[in-house]
């Protein structure tokens, strides 16, 4: 092995090394915080998300109901129980119509009827958000909806 001739040795004062070690200790601490925090948050997250979802659902039902009585009740009847327009609070309508279908009908209207487009995009007055709220409200009626075979004509429940 050849003789080592690598120049002068590195001479750094001891306090410099101590100070570096102190920083490294802090770095370790921060890393532990990060490594612990993420899984902990991940564990809690499903609850947080479902809580937020429930809260939003209730909010939507309430707002959707208000929107319905302001914009739709004059034709579809209070509580969607029928009038000059189809009875939406009926087993037949709610069980055969998906959320997306409902949203599309409200958004774009039904040609040849007095159901006009409601979306802001097509000259209506509702945002997509409000249309989703309406759909959420209508969907809450489903469990107790009466059977009305003539729902298309706006027939009331017998």
């Amino acid at each position, binding site marked *: 092995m050849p003789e080592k001739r690598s*120049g002068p040795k590195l001479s750094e004062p001891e306090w410099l090394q101590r100070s570096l070690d102190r920083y490294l200790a802090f770095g370790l601490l921060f890393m532990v915080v990060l490594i612990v925090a993420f899984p902990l948050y991940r564990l809690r997250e499903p609850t947080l998300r479902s809580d937020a979802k429930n809260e939003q659902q209730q909010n939507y039902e309430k707002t959707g109901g208000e929107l319905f009585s302001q914009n739709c009740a004059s034709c579809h009847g209070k509580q969607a129980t029928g009038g000059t327009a189809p009875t939406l609070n009926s087993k037949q309508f709610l069980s055969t119509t998906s959320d997306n279908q409902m949203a599309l009908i409200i958004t774009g209207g039904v040609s040849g009827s007095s159901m006009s487009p409601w979306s802001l995009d097509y000259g209506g007055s509702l*945002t997509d958000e409000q249309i989703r709220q309406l759909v959420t409200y209508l969907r809450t009626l489903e469990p107790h909806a009466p059977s009305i075979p003539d729902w298309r004509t706006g027939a009331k429940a017998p």
Partner: protein
Amino acid sequence: MIDQEAASGEQIRDGLEPDVYPVAEGRWQRLKHTDAWRSMFRHPQLDTPRGRALQGFSNVFLHVYPVKVPRRVLRLRYSWRLGFIATVLFWILVVTGVYLMFFYTPSVTAAYGDMQQLRTGIGFGQLIRNVHRWSAHLMVLVVVLHLVRVFFAGAYKKPREFNWVIGIGLLAVTLGFSFTGYLLPWDQLSYWAVTVGTNLVNYVPIFGGILTDLLIGGPQIGQPTLQRFYALHVAVLPLLLALFLMVHIWRVRKDGFAVRRGAAGAFAEGANELVGSESAADATDATDATDEPAIPAATALALANGDRVRLLGVVDRESVTAEERLTDDTVFAWPHLIVRHVVVALGTIATVLALGVAFAAPLRDIANPNLTPEPAKAPWYFVGLQELLSHFDPLIAGIFVPAGVLLTLAFLPYFDKNPHTESKYRKVAISVFATILVIAVVLTVIGALFRGPGWKFVPPWQHSYLEM
């Protein structure tokens, strides 16, 4: 042990002589001798000044970090690391921002729903949004503090004038980022905060109408505004910021981390600062970041005379003579500065993560142009202006004052010709700046905390109308 003959060829290519290169012993060392390893990590860890310097010179970090930095750079109170923290926050914002972009549509009909989806349906969605928002608020704060620190240090003076101007540009870009980002959730908070902000542009003399039209793209804030703000937020401003930041850091590298200059240059601290009572106190103060000990009087004398340490002197193995070592107040950037920076970056990430876990970013009802919330407040960093507007004519409070302050700040180094950086020689500059700063802080605090519906005085202990 590697074959001497073969090794010497390789090592000449590396610029390393055979006797310098460590001997290959064990599996780990053999890995370090493979071509692949050495193409990535060009120089081995050598505990000699020359080895350390070679590592620095052959590393991509040389673009940002010099091989050696003055010891004072290691001190926390040298800069409070504010510029670096701002850069870290920017990178946090880039990463979290990209994640948010995956789930966001810049459309008035979809944006708000996407925000709700982040909260209710997307893994880490709400957390990432919180972290993004807190980092953005903190970045504005840290950038302003950085400006204040640089002002009080007198670090905008020759030769750093231009970098100060770039810094003001970075402040403007940061504010632009925060303001354009404010609109994107498309809730009542964002809609009305941005309405208050953009209304100001209307007061610009002559061009007010055209500028407002350009900014919001219609008679009122709507789809064109959202699309413009989105494009500015995710494309234009990041590019601008990256460009300015490159110049900014390059200038810091050229002007700031350089080896000590003569006493006339900016940042030249008197030698007595290093040997005086302050650094003697450092040595005993265990809580100080570096506790730098007092250096020998001979070194101090050399420093006071403006002696320099030549970087090349470190590289050339034989030329580091005893005399030159004496004046060497520098340390290797790797590991001393870089490790400190990494730790500060980790601390910053931990802080915004903690904030993000503790405090959720707000989301009010969907934006409704027909329903003005009371009070409609601008984002917190503009709320001082809004407060000023309630006392003065909009042309004065909304245009002349902010434009005047920003322009004065930008050109400050060119009319503050006083070469001194010590505060005792800068009484006028410091008192003017401090007065403006105090006024701005007071206005912001009043506007943010003490104003309620109808911009009436409501103390925060009755009801807080502050929205972050």
